[in-house]
């Protein structure tokens, strides 16, 4: 049997996107929610088939351009589909009645399709196309509240900085094309070994910077706190839980074609990882707005992933790559949950009361008394982000740490200690939020809050349960993270 099923993972959400839009325009707007959810559930079928079916063909060519499903693609697909499904479920009540609701779902589906495509692309330029399409589809989503100045401002920064990044990526592609005469990643990889390095090093630098904007490497991160805090909460979850990770995967893919320099890239990742962790935590410590704090904490979590990949590339530690993949998955769960829970509070406290403002930490005082479920799930997300057992974040951080110590290199061990201290530092801003929610005295905002709809609660519970289960049984995700880790290492020729 030689079925090529995996492109349907890309085709279904992409195809559903205009349909959802049309359905919203022509029929009732409320249909779009169900339709979008249905489309995403449908996209799970090819994904599941890949893992259960045998003899499935995992590459697919449109003339000269190939698509391929390897460990990295499947990781990205899993992350995207999982959070996408939950976010669509969550957005049902959250976005109900907004002007442009149908565009929201259309773009969300398109973005999901583009990201899965990005993970599968084998041709360097085609890869950029997916990347750019993902960016274009997310601009509207970030600036969705176009009557709110701050949201527009965030959109502008996001757009311009992404565009600058994409210019760098294109320059890198031009350099690679000029040097190797090919755009197919495998061909490039086999050709780069024999070439003089400096041009390719420049291409690599362009890739790091170009994709780095999306990954939010410090100091390319400046768009992130704005965009993540101003977007509708479902989109914040997607941006933080999937989009920046997609950027990271894109960066790895592009850099891996220049494999000869992988040790240098590894060191670079370690450097950026260190910077990201420290900067993200110190900035998050200063925040009073919940979503902005979460946005900064994304920076520090990207730092952990970079650290894991750095260990893998500079020292050949598979545990590092696998840990990074694991943390990527867990971060999707944890940060997705955190943003969605924050969104649920914003919905109940503000949107339902026709108020549009940002959620401050102090608004959450006493939240647990009125919203026990949302407060509990939010606490789980925050504590997991802080790396407390028995939650998922602890396990993936641990795996990354193991890689650092297995290297036996004093510097790398020092970095692990630094990362662990950063985890402690991060508790200094996660714990007070949890504490605030469990206060006895309710704040005004909570007093006036309306109820949280069932669909939102279901999505929160789904994510929270996954976090706890994975925390207690970390090898549960090995089927996903192990191939991804191997794929990362083998792509870099380690």
């Amino acid at each position: 049997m030689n079925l090529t099923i995996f492109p349907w993972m890309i085709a279904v959400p992409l195809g559903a996107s205009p349909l959802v839009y049309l359905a919203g325009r022509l029929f009732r707007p409320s249909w779009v929610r169900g339709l979008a959810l249905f489309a995403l559930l449908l996209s799970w079928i090819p994904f599941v088939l890949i893992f259960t079916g045998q003899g499935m063909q995992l590459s697919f060519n449109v003339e000269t351009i190939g698509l391929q499903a390897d460990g990295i693609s499947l990781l990205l697909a899993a992350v995207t589909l999982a959070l996408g499904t939950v976010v669509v479920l969550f957005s049902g009540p959250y976005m109900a009645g907004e002007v442009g609701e149908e565009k929201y779902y259309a773009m969300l589906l398109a973005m999901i399709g583009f990201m899965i495509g990005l993970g599968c692309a084998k041709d360097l330029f085609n890869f950029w196309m997916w990347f750019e399409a993902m960016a274009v589809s997310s601009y509207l989503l970030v600036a969705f509240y176009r009557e709110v100045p701050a949201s527009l401002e965030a959109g502008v920064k996001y757009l311009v900085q992404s565009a600058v990044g994409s210019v760098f990526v294109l320059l890198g592609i031009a350099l690679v094309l000029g040097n190797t005469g090919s755009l197919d990643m495998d061909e490039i990889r086999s050709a780069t070994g024999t070439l003089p390095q400096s041009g390719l090093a420049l291409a690599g630098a362009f890739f790091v910077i170009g994709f780095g904007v999306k990954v939010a490497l410090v100091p390319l991160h400046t768009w992130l706190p704005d965009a993540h805090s101003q977007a509708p909460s479902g989109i914040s979850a997607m941006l933080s839980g999937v989009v920046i990770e997609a950027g990271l995967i894109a960066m790895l893919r592009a850099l891996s074609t220049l494999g000869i320099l992988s040790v240098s890239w590894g060191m670079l990742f370690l450097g950026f990882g260190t910077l990201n962790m420290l900067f993200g935590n110190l900035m998050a410590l200063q925040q009073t707005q919940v979503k902005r704090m979460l946005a900064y904490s994304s920076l520090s979590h990207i730092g952990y992933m970079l650290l894991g990949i750095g260990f893998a590339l500079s020292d050949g530690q598979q545990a590092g790559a696998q840990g990074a993949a694991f943390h990527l998955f867990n971060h999707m769960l944890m940060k997705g949950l955190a943003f969605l829970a924050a969104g649920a509070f914003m919905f109940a406290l503000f949107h339902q009361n026709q108020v549009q403002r940002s959620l401050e930490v102090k608004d959450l005082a006493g939240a647990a008394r009125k919203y026990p479920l949302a407060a509990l799930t939010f606490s789980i997300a925050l504590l997991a982000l802080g790396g407390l057992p028995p939650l998922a974040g602890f396990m993936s951080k641990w795996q990354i740490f193991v890689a650092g110590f297995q290297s036996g290199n004093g510097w790398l061990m020092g970095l692990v200690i630094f990362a662990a201290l950063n985890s402690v530092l991060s508790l200094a801003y996660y714990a007070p939020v949890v504490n605030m929610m469990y206060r006895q005295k309710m704040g005004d905002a909570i007093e006036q809050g309306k109820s949280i709809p069932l669909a939102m609660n279901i999505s929160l519970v789904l994510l929270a349960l996954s976090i706890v289960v994975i925390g207690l049984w970390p090898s549960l995700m090995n089927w996903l993270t192990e191939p991804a880790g191997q794929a990362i290492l083998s792509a870099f020729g380690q």
Partner: protein
Amino acid sequence: MTAILVSLVIGIPWIGALILWRTSDEAPRLQHTLAVAFSIAAGLSSLALLPYATSNTVIDIPMGSVFGNLTFTPDGLAVTLTIIACVIGSLAVIFSVDYMKGEAQLSRYYAFVLLFIGAMAGLVLSGSILFMFFFWEITALCSYALISFYNDDPKAVAGGIKALIITQVGGVGLLAGALITYATLGSYQISDLINNTESMPANLLGLIAFGFLLAAAAKSAQFPFHTWLPDAMEAPTPISALIHAATMVNAGVYLLARFYPAFVHVPGWALSVTIVGLISALITAFMALTATDLKRALAYSTVSQLGYMVYAIGVGGFFASQFHLLSHAVFKALLFLAAGAVIHAAGTRDMRRMGALGRQMPFVRNVFILGALALMGLPILNGFWSKELILEMGLTHGPLWAYVGMLLVAGMTAFYTLRMTWLVFFGKAREALHVHETGIAMKISLGLLAIGTFTTWLLAGPFSHMLQQTLVFHSVTELTTLELVEEILFTPATYGALAVVTLGLGIFWLGRKQAAVGKEARFDILSRESFGFEWLNRQVTSLTLQAGSALQKTQTGKLNWNVMGILGALLAVLAFLLWSA
């Protein structure tokens, strides 16, 4: 059977925690009942574990990839500490029935207490360093949640976060040790580490040893991390008794004791442990001399007594340290709970406002005195035997200067304990506090603990027998209780120590007029500032916050600067590539 019991000891409190979390705060009676039921069930299953103590691993679940195996080894050491955690835990819960009556959010309170009991049992029963760390972190979380229980009070919130951050910073030492173990041996098993110390590179073993010392010092509030425990006294008093006196703070001592055979030959380790114990015991005893807050005074004395245990491990007195741990858990829990009864009745923690309360609450006074006598180390209470054993070990195996220091601490302990008792229960009533005798639940807990103070020392023989039978790596000489009594009674050191204790008592008695008023002494500021360590903590905090607000300026919000960041990073990457090529 053993496996089932081990699962029960951890599982019952955790299931109880889940159930209690879901109970409604509208039904406090149900909450109290459930909490008491679950904690007693946990206590009983821990006691049932006693005859099954074994050096074998009874549960072994492979976790896959880099997480090693989840193992539980209920040897004598682990079982003893499990029993301490579960039994004192259930007594604290029973005490809470009266103490927490009418408090809001009891579901959160009891859920965390039960979660803590299970985690503490898991911590000591775990045979894998990774999972030891796992439970270690959960106990820290529970401790944080319970210190900040009255979270409308900023002091409680600040105390909680301080405890969390400081113990977590120390926890990094344990984390590093676990990681080094796995990286060099491919296993997290404690037995593998102790078995392979010879084959490990000396520098790595040293790192593990000192990493664990760091973790232990932070958890047991030893020097230089002793600042968090006094601030943790914002917790409800049963929590102070359970977590911050009888169980969690023992985790550090347990860690040192557990790994003692692995690290004893690491150069400088034993001496460092001795010094840490000595300094902690000395400075906190000093701080307790002038303390005016009843719970803080008890907290200082806790650190001081933990210092004794750490010191005992440093001088090789493994059994003595664990014996004192047992005694201390009992008498300190008693003292804390009795203090809780006083505070609950008097509505204040300030000893300067108390006085002559003994007439109104004779029962509490009597049990408090029992606890105090044990703390001073007077015969024939349990504190006497264990403290004398430690001092004897110190004299025969440790450096003399350290012994002299510890002897001094014994005198100071007698002084501040008597001062405390005097200020609260005797002398003149300084304020008209309307106190009342305690409720029945409180009396049950207090009574049981009071009985413990003059009976647990009788267990020395069986205890040493069990340790000797089930510990593979520690060399414990079996010693019957009678032998212990003989050994202590016929050592001249005992009388020296008793003389110092009497001296301490005498000095207080002579100066009781001054001391009893609780006047601000000149060195009071030193105590309140923990000899400058509070200042250090503040500096670290403010530096971190300052760094944060300095960095905030980099987020200008202006697009041009953002693009500048991108180009600057490009320049840095190019420079790096040119440099590395």
